[in-house]
Every structure is written in C-alpha cells, then in structure tokens.
C-alpha cells in the first residue's frame, strides 16, 4: 500500500493543465450574446494539473483500495463475486458507448435485442411473468416494487390497504421504502430458528395489509422453510408478496421466487449478476412481476413485435407507476449483466447457487471446527452465514469490529459487521462461488490467528489495523467537525 496521497488541489499550480485535451479557444465574439448578468465572474476553482500528475494521482489512489480484483471480499449480502473482464469489454464497444439515449429505435435494434433477451432470461430464472429494467439501483427497484403493490390495490378500489409487514431482521431500506410509498410499517418477530413467526404473521394480516417484504434466504442467512404457508396467509388476507432479491445468489437455478408465491421481486444486478460495484455504484435494480402486476411496471420496457424491438412507454402501459429515470436506466450495467448471463447460460446458472452454497457451508464448517460460534448452528448455511463473536466480546473485550479491522492486516476485506441487528457481535459471511478452497482455508487460518491474538495480546486486535494507509478513523469527529470539501488553508 502506498503512503498518504495529497488531495488533488494541493498539486494545483496556476497555468498548469492538460491542454492537449482542450478544444481550441473560441473567439470572444462567439460569447457576446450571453447576457453579462448571467455570466460567471470568476472561473470555477477546479484544480490546474498536468496530465501525468493527474494520472499518477488517481492511479496511486486506486492502490489504496481493496477490491475483488485484489482481495477476498466476503461481505454478506453483497455477493462480491468476480466481475468478468469480458462483460466490461463488450459493454464498452464504441457503438454502444456512443449511442444517444433518444436515438431512434431503428438505430438500436442490436442494443434492444440484448435488453429484451436480458428481460427474458431474468424472467426465466425468477419465474415471473414480466420484467422491467429501468430501476437504477436496488433501492429504486424496491421502491418500484412497493409502488406497484400500492397501485394494484388502488386500482381495485382497496385504498385502505396501506400496511407493509416487515420481519424485524429486515434491512433498513425495506421500512424506508415502505414509508416513501406512503405506507405504514408493521414489524413481526422472527423465531430463534430464523424463520418468520407464523402466529405473529397471522395476527398482523388483515384488511389493511398491502403486502409483506421478505428476503429468502433471509437476512439471517437461512431459508424461510415455510414460505409457501407465508404466501398463503398473506394472499388470503388480500395482500401481495414482495421479494427482496439481495440473496438471490443462494437460489439461482434452484428455486424461483415466482414459484414460491412472490408477486413482485427486485434483483440486484450488481450482486447476483456480477456487474461492477465501482466503489459504490452504479447498480441496477430490475424488477420482475407476476401477471397481476404487469400493467403497473415502470417504463420503459422493451417490447417485441415480430422481428423488431421497441420501447413500451406510457401509451402502452397507461397504468404504469411511471418513469424512474431520465432515460431508460443504466443501459451499460444491463449490458454487462446480459453478457454475464450469456457466459453462464443454462448450465452455469445452476452452478452459481450450488457452489456459492458449497463454499458457504464449507467455510462455516471449518470456522466452527476452529472454535467459532455459528448464530444458527442447527441450520444449513445458504450462500452466507452468521458467526457471532459475543463470547469474545464478553470474555476478552474484543469485538466483531476489532476482528474486522484485524482481518484487513491479514489481507482480507472484513465480512459485513453488525447486520443483521438481531445477532450481537456478528459477522455475516458470504464467500460467493468464484472463490477457491485455498482462499477459504487461508481465511480460516487468519481468523484462528486473530483469535489467538485476542487471547494473548488483545491490544493488537483492538487497535487494528496496523498496515493500512490509515489507522482507525475518528467517526465522531468526522460528524461533529464537518469537513466535506477541501479548503486551501484548512487543517483537519
């Protein structure tokens, strides 16, 4: 890891610049028609740096990161699998990159064919009747899903249905999404086995139930075994089932959400279908629906008439929940997902869940053999599992966060920590199917060594990391003394 890198503004020198990149200067007269009072008085204070300096700066910054390309990244619920280079290369073919979103369909049949086939493959793999590709992130897909549920009930005159049931282990975006759609959240408990409490569910459904939001396997890393019963209870009460596709990697090619009774699902193409995480985005949150919700899909959707493809918009889907992006969503991300699915094909799709589950169960078994405590020891791991470090926290004063930070020194990105909130001092671990057994063994070895350190020399763990570009950062200071933009003479 390289040493601390200055902020780019600190390289700035008046008069410097990558002038080969600039267009020729225009005559001053060309701007004469712009009214003076609408003009800037000073140029924007962007950095003035040369091209080599810029390249060096950002290359050095990249070297400060962990990434899938460089490190094992077992973040639960994030599905950090290999991002195939082919997906990037072919999504960035010049014609795809140069195409304007409003270019005519006659000049986009190649792209539209890819997107239509993507819709069809996603339908097949999820068992749904229709798919829309427009939502630009998982959260937007969730929003679309809940909005469609509301629209469905309203269209039938069921305007009182405004309650969304959410298990207490759910990810925070679920209740936030429900609220954003004007709904009220009802939480139900989860049993110690990890399954939803059916009695509580029966008590929670009624004439005000719009639907339930579930992940399966759940956020606890276990399969909701009575999902068919859950679906029956909610449907009988007149509600719909929403599937949060965060954990789709566990069941790809094995079980289909449509077959489990879900009416609407969102998929995270940046998780299950391996599009790049990019340091926080872009994602794509395609949604799939059963027949009941087809009229409400967000536009645009790709349609086919004979051999021609075209966009279906408001006039084709008058009951659509509407447009969620300026154009048609994250086309470049969708192309990458398409390429990935073509590379996997029928055979590869089935292997995803098989090997993701094999890797998770193997890692769980080895960690338990090494003395770590599983949160749900009586259950199979899905594609991920939870280890709890509550004993270490109680007896040694070493927490899950401490383990996570020390893992960085061993060259592993930490698993997800402190989610789900139900399990104290937890690590949610998802190896994914693209990791080798050797990598998993190395991770177990590192965890065992950290455990020994925790017993003999706990300070080493609690003050980790030691080998990163920075030590632990002062979060409280970051929030109390807000420094969100660089200032020339500011000291942190």
């Amino acid at each position: 890891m390289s040493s601390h890198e200055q902020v780019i503004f600190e390289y700035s020198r008046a008069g410097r610049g990558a002038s080969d990149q600039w267009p020729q200067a225009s005559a001053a007269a060309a701007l004469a028609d712009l009214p003076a009072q609408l003009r800037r008085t000073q140029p924007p204070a962007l950095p003035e740096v040369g091209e080599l300096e810029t390249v060096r700066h950002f290359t050095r910054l990249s070297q400060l990161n962990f990434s899938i390309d460089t490190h094992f990244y077992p973040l639960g619920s994030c599905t950090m699998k290999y991002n195939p280079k082919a997906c990037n290369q072919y999504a960035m073919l010049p014609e795809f990159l140069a195409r304007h979103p409003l270019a005519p369909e006659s000049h986009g049949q190649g792209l539209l064919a890819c997107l239509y086939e993507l819709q069809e493959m996603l339908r097949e793999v999820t068992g749904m009747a229709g798919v829309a590709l427009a939502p630009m992130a998982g959260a937007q897909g969730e929003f679309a899903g809940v909005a469609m549920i509301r629209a469905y009930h309203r269209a039938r005159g069921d305007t009182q249905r405004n309650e969304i049931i959410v298990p207490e282990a759910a990810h925070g975006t679920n209740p936030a999404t429900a609220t954003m759609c004007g709904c009220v959240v009802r939480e139900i408990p989860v049993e110690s086995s990890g399954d939803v409490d059916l009695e509580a569910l029966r008590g929670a459904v009624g004439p005000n139930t719009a639907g339930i939001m579930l992940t399966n396997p759940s956020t606890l890393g276990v399969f909701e075994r009575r999902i068919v019963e859950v679906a029956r209870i909610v449907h009988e009460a007149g509600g719909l089932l929403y599937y949060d596709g965060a954990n789709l990697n566990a069941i790809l090619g094995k079980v289909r959400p449509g077959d489990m009774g879900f009416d609407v699902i969102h998929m995270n193409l940046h998780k299950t279908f391996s599009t790049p995480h990019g340091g926080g985005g872009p994602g794509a949150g395609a949604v799939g629906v059963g027949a009941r919700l087809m009229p409400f899909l967000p536009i645009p959707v790709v349609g086919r008439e004979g051999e021609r493809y075209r966009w279906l918009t408001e006039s084709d889907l008058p009951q659509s929940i509407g447009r969620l992006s300026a154009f048609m969503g994250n086309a470049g991300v969708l192309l990458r997902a398409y390429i990935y699915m073509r590379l996997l094909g029928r055979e590869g799709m089935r292997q995803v869940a098989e090997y993701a589950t094999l890797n998770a169960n193997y890692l769980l078994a080895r960690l338990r053999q090494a003395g770590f405590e599983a949160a749900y020891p009586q259950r199979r791991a899905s594609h991920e599992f939870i280890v709890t470090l509550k004993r270490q926290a109680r007896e040694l004063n070493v927490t899950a966060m401490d383990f996570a930070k020390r893992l960085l020194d061993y060259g592993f990105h930490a698993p997800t920590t402190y989610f789900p909130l139900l399990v104290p001092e937890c690590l949610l671990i998802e190896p994914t199917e693209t990791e080798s057994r050797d990598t998993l063994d190395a991770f177990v070895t590192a965890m065992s060594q950290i455990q020994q350190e925790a017993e003999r020399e706990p300070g080493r763990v609690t003050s980790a990391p030691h080998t990163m570009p920075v030590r632990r950062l002062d979060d409280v200071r970051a929030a109390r003394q807000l420094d969100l933009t660089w200032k020339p003479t500011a000291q942190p």
Partner: protein
Amino acid sequence: MSNVPADLKYTSSHEWVRALGDGSVEIGITDHAQQALGDLEFVEVPEAGRAVQAGEPCAVVESVKAASDVYAPFAAEVIAGNPRLSAEPETVNAQPYGEGWLMRLRPAAGALAAAGLMSAAQYQQLLETEGG
C-alpha cells in the same frame, strides 16, 4: 447499568420528564438511551411556540450509529429547546438528566396526568426485561 433518578418520570421510549413546579416540564433522554446511541454528534430541538401532539416526534438525537426521534409524551406547547445542544451535543451524553435536557414544554390541560408516565421503579423494570 444505567442511572435512573428516583424523582423523575419516564416513558417506554426512554425519555424522562421533570416537573418544574410552575406547571411546565423538562424533558430529555435517559442515561440508558444516551449509552445505547453512543457519542451524539447532532441534536435537533423544537422551536418555541410550536404545538405538539402526544406521540409526535419533536426532536432528533443523532450519533454515528443511529438517528432517533424523541417523542412528545403528551400534547403540549413548546416553551424552549435547549440552545446549548446545537454547539455541544455531547452534553446529552455527559449530563443526560442535567445540562443535557432537550426541551421544556407546557402540557395541555390534563394531558400530563393522562399520559401514563412510569415511575423510576417501573422504568428500571422495563430496562431489565429489555436486557439493558
């Protein structure tokens, strides 16, 4: 373990209520609450003159870990929010029952009695069942 002063009343959402003797009350969050939240880095208090309903969120306490609403235990008019907290939110952590008070309210007629506030012993009981 947290501190639960005997002379205050409490709510199940971890607020305390102190009668100020002139019919008005002072409200803050309990020691348990400030411990659970961690170092507060931002507090938002209601403005004077605002009318609040029972159960209405009227203040926010925010730490690195979580942002929590603070609820009016009963219908009231806001007399004042604690002006110190915008610059020094950590006061709530250091003195949750003293200088870290959040707001002073004038309850609507009869609202205080009807609010069903808990005694210190009842609140202590609640903490034990919650495992706090």
